[in-house]
């Protein structure tokens, strides 16, 4: 049972990151290799707020706002000129972005590993189903589920979501209808980075906050969004659950083989259904 909860908590964290990644890819056509660095920045921002105010909840609220502003700046300065370029240029630019973000964090917070204290009500564990389950993990699962619901509602049921979808499907048409596509793009990117920021804040009490935390998570996120189908949010949920559970149960039964199994599954997915398990068939030629 605890394995299941832990698996879910990993999945929720992965979802928060993959959702932003896949949103940005699906609506802007950009593969953001710097998404992991953004998540890392989010964790440091959350650390700073939590360390200054001694309030985790405040950090959880402030971090996405700060990151949204950072995202908007990045979009304006770096991405706007290269929307129409091939993917390799996006790799180059976002790789440069990784270096810049890491340098910024190093200049501000140094190399010291940081940590966010678990919020008072959530420290320790509860005894359910015959095992000890960390209260914070349970919170992460509930919070993550709420974020999934909110995101779906936002994209599929609100006017804002409609505008977002319209602009990504047909930018020219949306423009004719009076939508400022430039602004919408900025908003989408900011939303993606804000989600990564939330991910960073959530990860703070579970994982060491360090410069490398983005690197190690970004590959998992790529796996999630490939399995789910590039640009597909529903797929990202499924992919995150699949990878989260693989990691948790793999840890339980065969820790040494998890990585190989994950990548193996991924390569087979790409071979058999390159559009992802939930993707719409894209023209690959």
């Amino acid at each position, binding site marked *: 049972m605890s394995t299941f909860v832990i698996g879910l908590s990993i999945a929720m964290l992965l979802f928060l990151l993959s959702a932003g990644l896949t949103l940005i890819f699906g609506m802007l056509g950009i*593969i953001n290799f710097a998404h992991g660095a953004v998540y890392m920045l989010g964790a440091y921002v959350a650390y700073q707020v939590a360390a200054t105010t001694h309030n985790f909840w405040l950090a959880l609220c402030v971090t996405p706002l700060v990151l949204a502003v950072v995202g908007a700046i990045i979009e304006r300065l*770096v991405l706007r*000129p*290269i929307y129409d*370029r*091939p*993917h*390799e*240029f996006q*790799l*180059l*630019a976002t*790789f*440069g*972005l*990784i*270096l*810049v*973000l*890491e*340098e*910024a964090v*190093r*200049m501000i917070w140094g190399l010291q590993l940081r940590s966010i204290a678990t919020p008072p009500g959530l420290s320790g564990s509860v005894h359910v189903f015959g095992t000890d389950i960390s209260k914070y993990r349970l919170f992460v699962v509930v919070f993550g589920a709420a974020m999934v619901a909110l995101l779906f509602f936002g994209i599929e049921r609100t006017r804002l979501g409609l505008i977002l979808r319209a602009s990504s499907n047909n930018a020219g048409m949306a423009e004719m209808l009076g939508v400022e596509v430039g602004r919408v793009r900025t908003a989408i990117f900011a939303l993606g980075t804000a989600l990564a920021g939330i991910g960073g804040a959530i990860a703070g009490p579970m994982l060491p906050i360090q410069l490398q935390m983005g690197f190690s998570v970004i*590959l998992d996120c*790529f*796996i999630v969004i*490939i399995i789910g189908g*590039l640009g597909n949010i529903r797929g990202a949920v499924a992919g995150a659950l699949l990878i989260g559970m693989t990691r948790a149960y793999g840890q339980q039964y065969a820790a*040494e083989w998890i*990585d*190989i199994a994950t*990548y*193996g599954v*991924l*390569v087979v997915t*790409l*071979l058999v259904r*390159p559009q992802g398990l939930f993707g719409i068939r894209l023209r*690959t*030629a």
Partner: protein
Amino acid sequence: MRQVKHSEVLTVGVLVLLFAAAPFVTGDEGWLYLAALIMTWSIFALGYDISFGLTGLLSFGHAAFFGMGAYAASWAMLSAGLPFSVGIVAAIGAGGLSALVFGFVGRRVSGLYFSLMTLMLAELISIVMTTRLRHLSGGVDGLPGVPRPQAFGIDFFNAANFYWVIFALFCLTLAFCAVLKSSPLGQALRGVRQNAVRSEQVGFNVGALRLTALTLSGCLSGLAGALLASLMMYVSPQLLGWKMSGDVVIMTLLGGSGTPVGPVIGVTLVELLREGLSATTEHWYGLLGVIFILCTIYLPEGVAGLGRKLWRR
């Protein structure tokens, strides 16, 4: 058009002369080492550009070919005790073979999915080598003591002597790439990049051509891997990691893909920037990032492309 060709030949000539003159100009082994490193990476980038610049296959998994080449050479020389020349041949073979496998597995996917596929395949190989094949790869610790050639009584452990081995192979690679580009095969690959549908329709087996390009590219990557292992006398699974793949894409793009000069300029630029910036500022890492971003935005054809523009003026 003709003028462009001339400028390229000239640039390549100047580059080769610079590398040839280096040992006479400076006795400083540190600089020779850096030059040898640049030539080794240039071979890698030139190999990469056969796949990317010439054929249009954006691979994010070239580290696998590079690393397998390095390991093949190390195994041949360390475990089997074979001479350096055999090690090099083994590296070229191993690089080509892994590329062939990648190409075969990925024959049905193209575009972005091909990139992601190669990235993940390379990661898989890297993990398998690091954890499962620990006894062969040395695990995270790697294998120290990769030898250098032993021939004609020359001491190749002397940096200056080994420099000439790398220089010779670098020149051969440059020549090969230049000839390849203008050869029928090179033209056919250019055709595949520009218009795969048309290529097929005029009777080219596009799948086989892509596979050929990737394999040739893998061969050169393997060669570069073996040279790096020998130059550093060390090989580790980090050579297979995705950072290596990223590095070669970035160097090729910065220099400008599709020409023999571009990748070499890219490698030289990145290595010298690293060297120069890290000597002058603590924050070289971030500065490098800013330079990458500026280059992406303002130099879409790389430094070589900028040179072409200035030349035409």
